[in-house]
Each structure stands twice: as structure tokens, then as C-alpha cells.
């Protein structure tokens, strides 16, 4: 490999890492939010991603209500609207299932409800996978946009070397960053965001303040699902998916959340971004089937060297 094509490959891995990484980051925030606020380990988050993809698909293709927007704008509006739709789905899942094994109900029990949560969320995951199989079928889908096969070429000024920026991924990346920022502002500066953090920090004390902790937990679960669903809708524009697509991504989500520092909601974004980078760079030297292994090697290294995660911080008095 000559130096020119090496530079070109590295530059392309870098940009692909950033674009895909930001979308992964958004996807991870959803899971991080649920764990960070409610301390619920949600094994069905991959299926929530899958539901986001299908929600967007049904909104924008065929006779979908957003079909009039056309193939350029529609897929991205569909991805964003998948958020509120899956928020409602998540809130309902919480109301009827998750709330029975989490929150104030199980606070202080021997396992804080984690064992129940494991079984319930694994169950939801299986039901959604197999239910998806029945409802959607198994032929791979994609939310088609001409933008996914069109790229902006940026010359690097070294011979013929240039970077190709896939337009669909570029827009998806921008939507992901804006969504993540909006969530960050909500969590940091609004009354709802602060009450969510208070309910996460100390649910009993939050109750003393008059905060309805179970209501906020329901909101957190809905938001976590909605955020991951938006990421799913964005990914649906450039990859093909089916009812079992969640399995591939739940691993990435957990790596991202742990890398970012468990409990740090925005850290999950940086964790997801890191995973995106590792994945794209490993593609330079490793065969595709080893990419997930590369993610795990980096994951294990960081867990060994920095167990609080890359961006975790401690609020305890030193």
C-alpha cells in the first residue's frame, strides 16, 4: 500500500467513524438514560432500535403519512417522528411491565429488582423479535433515500487522495448531534431534567421534595426508548434491517454505555462515538467478522485501565 492510499484510507475511516459514531452515540444515550435514571438494565433496547426502524419505515414508505415528503426529506423526518411514537410504546411497556419490577416498588429489596428486570426485559426482547417476525416478515427492509448512494468528495490535496462523505450518513449524523444536544440541554437546564436527575440520585429524597418518582421513571424509560428509536430511524436510511437487527446493536450499546461510564448519560454518547471509531478503524486492518472482537478488546482494555469508564466521574467527597 503506498502512502497516498494509506492516507486516503485513514481519512475515510476517520470520517466514517465520526458519522457512524455520532449515530451510535445517540443510540447509546437511550440505553444510558434508562440505566442512568432508573438503574434498569434493559435487554430489549436492541428491539426498541428495531421498532424505531420500522416506525420510520411505515411512516415514510408506501402509503405512510409522511410519504408526501419524498425520498430526500421523508426518511429523516420519519426517523425523528419515530422518537415520540416509540416514547409512547416505551411508556406503556414501563406502565404494564417494567414498573412492576423497578422503581420505589423494589427499592431496598435484596437485588433492587434486577433479577426481575433481567427476565422481564429479556422476555420483552424475545416477544418483540418474534412478534416482529410475524408482523413484518423476514425480508430485509431499508428506508430508501437516493442520498445513501451519493457522496460528497473532498480532495485532501495529496495526489488523488480524497474523502467520500456519504450524504445520508452525513445528514443522519447531524440529526443525531442535534438530538443529543437537545437532550443534554433538557437534562441540564429544565425543571423536568433536574427532577429526572434528582429522582435518579436519591428517589426517597426526591419523594420528600414532592417529585412523583414513578412518573418520572416512566418518562425516563419512554425517553430512553424514543432516543434509541430516532437513532434506529437514522440507521434505517443506510442499512438493511429485519426483526432480528437489534441483536447486533445491543452489544454496541452496552459497550458504549460502559465505555462512557455507567450512569453518565452524556458519557454514553462519547462511548458510542468511541465504538464507532474503533469499528471503522479496525475495518482497515481486520476482516469484517473480527470488527466486533476489536470493539471488545478496546472495551476490555478500558475496563481494565479505567473502570469508571472514559467519562465517568465521582460525585463523592474524596
Amino acid at each position, binding site marked *: 500500500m503506498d502512502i497516498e492510499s494509506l492516507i486516503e484510507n485513514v481519512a475515510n475511516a476517520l470520517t466514517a467513524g465520526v458519522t457512524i459514531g455520532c449515530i451510535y452515540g445517540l443510540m447509546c444515550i437511550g440505553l444510558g438514560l434508562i440505566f442512568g435514571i432508573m438503574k434498569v438494565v434493559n435487554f430489549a433496547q436492541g428491539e426498541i432500535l428495531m421498532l424505531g426502524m420500522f416506525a420510520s419505515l411505515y411512516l415514510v414508505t408506501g402509503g405512510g403519512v409522511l410519504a408526501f415528503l419524498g425520498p430526500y426529506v421523508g426518511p429523516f423526518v420519519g426517523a425523528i417522528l419515530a422518537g415520540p411514537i416509540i416514547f409512547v410504546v416505551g411508556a406503556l411497556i414501563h406502565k404494564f411491565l417494567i414498573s412492576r419490577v423497578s422503581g420505589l416498588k423494589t427499592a431496598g429489596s435484596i437485588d433492587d429488582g434486577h433479577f426481575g428486570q433481567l427476565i422481564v426485559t429479556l422476555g420483552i426482547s424475545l416477544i418483540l423479535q418474534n412478534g416482529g417476525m410475524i408482523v413484518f416478515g423476514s425480508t430485509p427492509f431499508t428506508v430508501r433515500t437516493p442520498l445513501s448512494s451519493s457522496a460528497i468528495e473532498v480532495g485532501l490535496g495529496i495526489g488523488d487522495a480524497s474523502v467520500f462523505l456519504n450524504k445520508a450518513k452525513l445528514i443522519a449524523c447531524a440529526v443525531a448531534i442535534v438530538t443529543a444536544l437537545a437532550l443534554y440541554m433538557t437534562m441540564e437546564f429544565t425543571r423536568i431534567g433536574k427532577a429526572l*436527575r*434528582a429522582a435518579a*440520585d*436519591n428517589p*426517597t*429524597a426526591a*419523594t*420528600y421534595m414532592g417529585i412523583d418518582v414513578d412518573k418520572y421513571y416512566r418518562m425516563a424509560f419512554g425517553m430512553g426508548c424514543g432516543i434509541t428509536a430516532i437513532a434506529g430511524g437514522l440507521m434505517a436510511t443506510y442499512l438493511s434491517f429485519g426483526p432480528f437487527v437489534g441483536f447486533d446493536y445491543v452489544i454496541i450499546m452496552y459497550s458504549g454505555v460502559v465505555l462512557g461510564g455507567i450512569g453518565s448519560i452524556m458519557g454514553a454518547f462519547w462511548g458510542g462515538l468511541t465504538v464507532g471509531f474503533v469499528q471503522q478503524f479496525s475495518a482497515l486492518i481486520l476482516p469484517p467478522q473480527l470488527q466486533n472482537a476489536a470493539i471488545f478488546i478496546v472495551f476490555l482494555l478500558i475496563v481494565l485501565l479505567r473502570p469508571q469508564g472514559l467519562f465517568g466521574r465521582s460525585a463523592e467527597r474524596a
Partner: protein
Amino acid sequence: MLEISNLSVSYGGLRALTDVSLTVAEGQFVTVVGPNGAGKTTLFKTISGVVKPASGSITFFGKDLLSLSASQRAHLGIAHVPEGRQVFKTLTVRENLEMGAYPAAGQAAWARTLDRIHTLFPILHERAGQMAGTLSGGEQQMVAIGRGLACAPRLLMLDEPSMGLAPAVTDTIFERVQQIHKEDGVTILLVEQRVAEALELSDHGYVLETGHMVLDGNYETLLADDRVRKSYLGLT
């Protein structure tokens, strides 16, 4: 304003409170004393609603508290400064106070109460942007009390505010509590291990032992009681 009658509370099979009655009138300073494990914290938690009683009644300004959920009770103007402070460690000092002001009454009075909290505890102004978990124990207690004040309470319940604090810091805390009572006219219900100081501040005191209210009266009455003198005040 607060009327507790014949309250009994069990944890599983274990009786923590038996037939406890207690009254707090508006404007009063009432103290509950008693040894560790007597059920003082349980009493507070039952008033706040995080522990459910087996029997008895609690009313606040005539309203049946037991028919309300725990989070609804704070909105009536009951502030609970819990044992062990329980500040929101990952929130800043200012955010802790804002969460105290979560009920509508607290929001309406926010600018004025924040000013007042900063006058009482200037350190909370200095440390406004710092995460509460990084403060010292005394400062965290100030955050907890400030957070309680932020809801513009009609009743301020304090569960052992002196726990684990140096004597000098405890003195400050006691002084502030007295100020909150005298200057702001807030009704106080206090649980304390530092019996002598606590009773001296109060209009009325209750003695709770192993879940039973064994004695109550004003400072003079309690001081005249031999058991109180011996067990709690170390006098003869």
C-alpha cells in the same frame, strides 16, 4: 396543624411504633427525643408517606394525610429534612435548592426564599455551582435544611440534624433552626439526640422509647421528670 393519633407501624412482623399520638400546633417548636431505634425516623417517614402505617390516623390542617401518596404530601407544605441529610449528591448546591422548591408554593416564593437561604447559610451561595456530594457533612446539612426551606414550608421536620457533626457546626445548625422558627415563623418538628439543647428550644417535647410515647410536656415538666433527668440529661 399536625394531628397524629394512635399510630402503629410495623416492618414485616417487627413493631416499630405502637399507638403513638402527637400534636403540633401552628407556630410551635416541638421536639421528639428518644434513644436509638426508638422509632423516631419511622415516625417521620410515616408522616412523609414512604412508610405505611398499620393503623392510626394523621391529619394536616384537617386533611387526611394517609389518603395521599408520599409525593403529594410535600405539596401541602410539609418539608422533610431526612436523617443522614440525603442531599442529591450529583446535583449542584443550587439545583438541590431548586428541587426543594419543586412544589408550587416553593416556586412562587423562589426569589425570596433563595435570598433567605443565602442569608442563613452564606456558604451555600459561595458553593452554588459545586456538586453537593463533594461538600463536608456540615455543609451538606445546610443544603438539606435549605432544600427544606425552599418549598416555603408550613411544617419543617428535621431528623437529627446534628448527626455526625462537630459540636461547633452543630451549634450553628441549632442557631439557624431557632432563627427559622423565630424570624420566619416556621413551625418545627425536630428529632434530636442532643436532648438538652433540643428541649430548651422547644415549646413541647415528646419522649419516645421502643415505639411508645412514654412522656410529653413542656421544657419545665420534662426537666422535672426524674427519668428524663437521668437518662437524657445526665443530671441527678
